[in-house]
């Protein structure tokens, strides 16, 4: 069974959380540490972002992370290698490759799906590949046992049915607000009824993301969805801890701060002194 499907069947130790991190920000070693940490915290899945020159679905926080990772030399091949190392370390959490379509096209969809499978990925999120353009990749991914996770937006309306009807597993990614990724105070009007509607139509779990940055958001959203994606808020945290994450002496403490944030988001008790 695909690890994503398994993860949604598993009992959760809090609200189901799907964190996004940009691979290679601030460096490869830190990304690997973060994957191990998130795995240990029992998150539902991890989105590993491939840095890209033109991330047009992303807001300033993830754009900046992408720039830093590219400047540090991270590539799609490097992201695959990260996943492979994480799996060798025993990481069991589902890994989702988040990438724009052009690198996929450049690599070749069929060989990328194979490489992603071999590296230990369980699915893909490609924000600029809508249903109409995703047929070939979806077919190849399904044959390999990987899920192409589709996005559904508050503007999707009558498209929802067509989008969810093609799913045999994985989950549906609901965009909580118009716009790009980023932390927000407000979600789209009627977000709850939108999520309920998608849930009603879908035979697979429903996750919600874009703008979720606070434990209250996670709590509110997971009343209407099976999981919440947290991207920019976590990436921002990693950005602000960047220098401390890079230095070996300050790293454990910095990772501890990330761990604390993840526990807060997932609504679990945060011990007064956690970890080391």
């Amino acid at each position, binding site marked *: 069974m695909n690890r994503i499907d398994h993860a949604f069947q598993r009992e959760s130790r809090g609200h189901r959380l799907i964190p996004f991190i940009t691979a290679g920000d601030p460096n490869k070693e830190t990304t690997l540490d973060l994957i191990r940490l998130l795995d240990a915290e029992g998150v539902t899945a991890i989105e590993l972002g491939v840095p890209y020159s033109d991330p047009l*679905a992303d807001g300033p926080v993830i754009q900046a992370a992408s720039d830093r990772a590219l400047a540090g030399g991270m590539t799609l091949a490097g992201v695959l290698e990260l996943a492979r190392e994480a799996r060798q370390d025993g990481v069991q959490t589902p890994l989702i490759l988040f990438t724009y379509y052009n690198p996929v096209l*450049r690599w070749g969809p069929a060989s990328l799906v194979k490489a992603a499978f071999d590296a230990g990925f369980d699915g893909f999120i490609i924000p600029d590949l809508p249903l109409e353009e995703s047929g070939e990749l979806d077919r190849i991914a399904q044959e390999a046992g990987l899920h192409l996770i589709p996005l559904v937006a*508050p503007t999707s309306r009558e498209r929802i049915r067509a989008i969810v009807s093609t799913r045999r597993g994985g989950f549906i990614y609901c965009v909580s607000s118009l716009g790009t990724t980023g932390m927000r105070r407000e979600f789209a009007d009627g977000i709850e009824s939108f999520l309920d509607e998608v849930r009603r139509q879908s035979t697979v779990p429903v996750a919600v993301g874009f703008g979720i940055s606070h434990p209250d958001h996670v709590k509110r959203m997971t009343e209407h969805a099976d999981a919440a994606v947290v991207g920019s808020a976590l990436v921002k945290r990693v950005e602000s801890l960047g220098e401390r994450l890079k230095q070996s002496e300050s790293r454990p403490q910095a990772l501890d701060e990330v761990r604390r944030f993840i526990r807060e988001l997932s609504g679990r008790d945060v011990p007064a002194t956690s970890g080391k």
Partner: protein
Amino acid sequence: MTSRSAVQEKADERGRFGDFGGRFVPETLMNALSELEAGYREALADESFQQELRRLLAEYSGRPTPLTLAENLTRITGGARIYLKREDLNHTGAHKINNTLGQGLLAKRMGKKKLIAETGAGQHGVASATVAALLGLECRVFMGEEDVRRQRLNVFRMELLGAEVVPVTSGTRTLKDATNEAIRHWVSHVEDTFYLIGSVVGPHPYPEMVKMFQRVIGDEARVQLLEREGRLPDEVVACVGGGSNAIGMFTAFLADEAVGLTGVEAAGEGVDTDRHAATLTKGSPGVLHGSLSYLLQDEDGQVLPAHSISAGLDYPGVGPEHAYLKEAGRVRYTIATDREALEAVRALSRAEGILPALESAHAVAEALKVAADRSTSDVVVICLSGRGDKDVESIRQGLEGMLHESD
């Protein structure tokens, strides 16, 4: 006289020209694109919309633009007769206004009150701001910070026309990033905002729609040339950045297999350097700004920065129909360097008293070569897409640089 051509002239139902085109955008925009496509098809079929557009093109922009026989240039070159399709004589100084009037009217018809646009050199921004003022729409123009600096006068013009210019600080701070930012803004405000794309790029139906609004260039040139010469041209030459003036010009002749079509890309400092914008010549298929076309990219699929002395050609992508026409072998795509463009500016200015935009000068540079190789009974038409007033400072610096080199 016209032979049937196998070349596909309209996007198919998926928005593809051959393998190219399509819709590669966030899901949030998909319904907006369907609504746009429906609105555009209704407008095309509505005689009152067509009438209003024709009226504005004639009374406001000054169409039809003349077809000028460049007698002196023809004599100097010593080959084919050279004609200039004078898009430089449009209101606001370039062909861009044909498309902004069309899309502006469409936006109004669809009930949108806010326009957004992206601009590199500023010509499309100025044309968008102009149309917004005319039609009483709000207008916000995204422009790379680097281009804001280089094109201060056009920034001021847009502001004078009532538009808000938003400097974009991400990425290379040029047109590519201004376009990313315009798309990001559109995703956030899709319900009340019309995105006025300035070239035959972007997701379906933009490439086809912009072509429809620009085909007036070629349609007029064809009629004018038949009146003057009693025959079709042997060669039609146009510059290609995104490629809207070229598509507008070529469309009228696509089915005439005897008419040679040449698109000229910016070779910048040379295609052997990394400082050029020759997407079709040096790029490979890829996805940028919502469609599958040719792209300047590295082996990992990261988009590479483009360079040209002409800010309007300084773009790493190209319209998907051009990618198709290249692969179909219907259009020959070639290049002109910064230096060749500057020399063409000087040649056209001195011979004819016409100062072309640096973009158009790339077409002039190639057309002079083509004309020289042809017999005096042949006819070459150049799409003179815009005037050079906006570029005078860049031209001065460029020509001075060339003088220093030859010292």
